[in-house]
């Protein structure tokens, strides 16, 4: 390397960014060239002085302004819409996880049955076919369940609201999330919390807890029955998403009402329209 080539690399050499081979070559040249030594020393002195410049600290006003701005943005309409979309995404994932697990198990059972029927030595009688309920039976059952949900849920929530703080009620709901096989009373309590609890957090948590049981008619009807009373857009959108993901066709009339209601939040209207398109 000659003097010009070496000097072109001084900035990188001083920064320690020069490749090892080039660094060795530059050092070797410097050792034998007084002119480059002087040039290098003066640049090193300048950089060293620059690095020694004390870093001033900003005033406390900067931190206060930043957090005020952040809080304002978090409360803006766009951010709330984004939170709604995030919750929808998470809900969809949770639902599919819980729906696909039984479907997978059923597929395995069918495969096992098919294999057994084809290759088994003994002939087993075919299971009795599941007969679909008639429309009248279904309607009667739904009506009974609705009445039951209303009765049990209201009693449960009324007692909770009277006796417990929001945190305690939230805890009561959260403990039910982990239950693999909640009985009808637990599910009715969750539906009751969804319909009547005054805290948005408790209602959303109750809906989350109901997701694994979206295949149960009692649950789907409970969510559908709660939707007309709900006033909070976040919860409304989460409920719509639940019903659509669960393919609850009985939700269509309620979704049509919401889709045409100009008085409600636009995010809810949009969710209802999207839901109608999917049902």
């Amino acid at each position, binding site marked *: 390397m000659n003097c010009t080539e070496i000097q072109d690399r001084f900035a990188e050499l001083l920064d320690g960014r020069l490749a090892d081979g080039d660094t060795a070559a530059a050092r070797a040249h410097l050792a034998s060239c007084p002119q480059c030594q002087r040039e290098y020393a003066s640049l090193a002195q300048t950089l060293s002085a620059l*690095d020694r410049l004390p870093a001033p600290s900003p005033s406390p006003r900067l931190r206060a302004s930043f957090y005020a701005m952040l809080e304002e943005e978090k409360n803006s309409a766009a951010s709330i819409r984004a939170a709604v979309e995030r919750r929808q995404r998470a809900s969809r994932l949770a639902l599919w996880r819980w729906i696909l697990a039984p479907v997978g198990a059923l597929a395995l059972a069918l495969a096992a049955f098919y294999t057994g029927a084809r290759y088994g030595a003994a002939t087993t009688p075919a299971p009795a076919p599941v007969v679909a309920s008639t429309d009248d039976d279904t309607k009667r059952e739904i009506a009974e369940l609705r009445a039951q949900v209303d009765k049990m849920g209201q009693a449960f929530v009324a007692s909770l609201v009277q006796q417990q703080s929001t945190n305690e009620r939230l805890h009561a709901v959260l403990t039910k999330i982990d239950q693999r096989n909640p009985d009808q009373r637990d599910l009715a309590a969750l539906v009751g919390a969804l319909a009547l609890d005054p805290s*948005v957090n408790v209602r959303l948590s109750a809906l989350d807890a109901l997701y694994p049981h979206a295949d149960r008619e009692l649950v789907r009807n409970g969510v559908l029955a709660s939707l007309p009373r709900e006033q909070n857009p976040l919860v409304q959108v989460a409920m719509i998403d639940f019903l659509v993901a669960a393919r609850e066709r009985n939700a269509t009339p309620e979704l049509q009402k919401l889709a045409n209601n100009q008085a409600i939040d636009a995010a809810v209207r949009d969710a209802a329209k999207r839901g109608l398109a999917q049902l």
Partner: protein
Amino acid sequence: MVETEEPRAAVSTAAEPLSDHDLMLAVRDGELDALGVLFERHHGQLFGFLVKLTGQRPAAEDITQTVFQRMLKYRHTYRDDGSFTAWMYHLARRCAADHFRKSSTSPVATDPQDLTERSDDRPHAGDHAAARDEHALLHLALNRLDRDDREILLLSRFQELSFAEIASILECSVGAAKVRAHRALKELRDIFLSLQRTGRN
């Protein structure tokens, strides 16, 4: 409404501290609190850069605030393969350019003592006074440097930025960034030495 948001598990409960990039991706996905962590990590260094670039503390504070404001506003444009630090300095450069355009003047040469820590009230005041003089001269030298030269010189002193990143911030080639950094350093050296000689005489 804030109470209805999901728990910030990704931000606050991870065993390993999240990288700047992961935090900014979280901000992009709506976890706005993650920007607070990034602010705490970077605002001091960014402010220091802007003080040296503008020569004015109030302006540097305003620009720092604007940079984080734009991070929020343009969070959707942050790329999966992005470098947070490079993006931050890219925004800072734009914000500083806006500031210079608005003020329509080159940086005001404020009293350099306002830009340095006041250290001469302690013992060994003579040594501190000499250091203060050196800092004052260097601030003057920086202020006399062309703004583009000052910018690349200060960026190149941040070891966490590669020349490839500096080149992307300045929207030029890596080779051009290296040449400009070298030229800026030589220019600063010449002004600094000249000021030192004037001071001695």
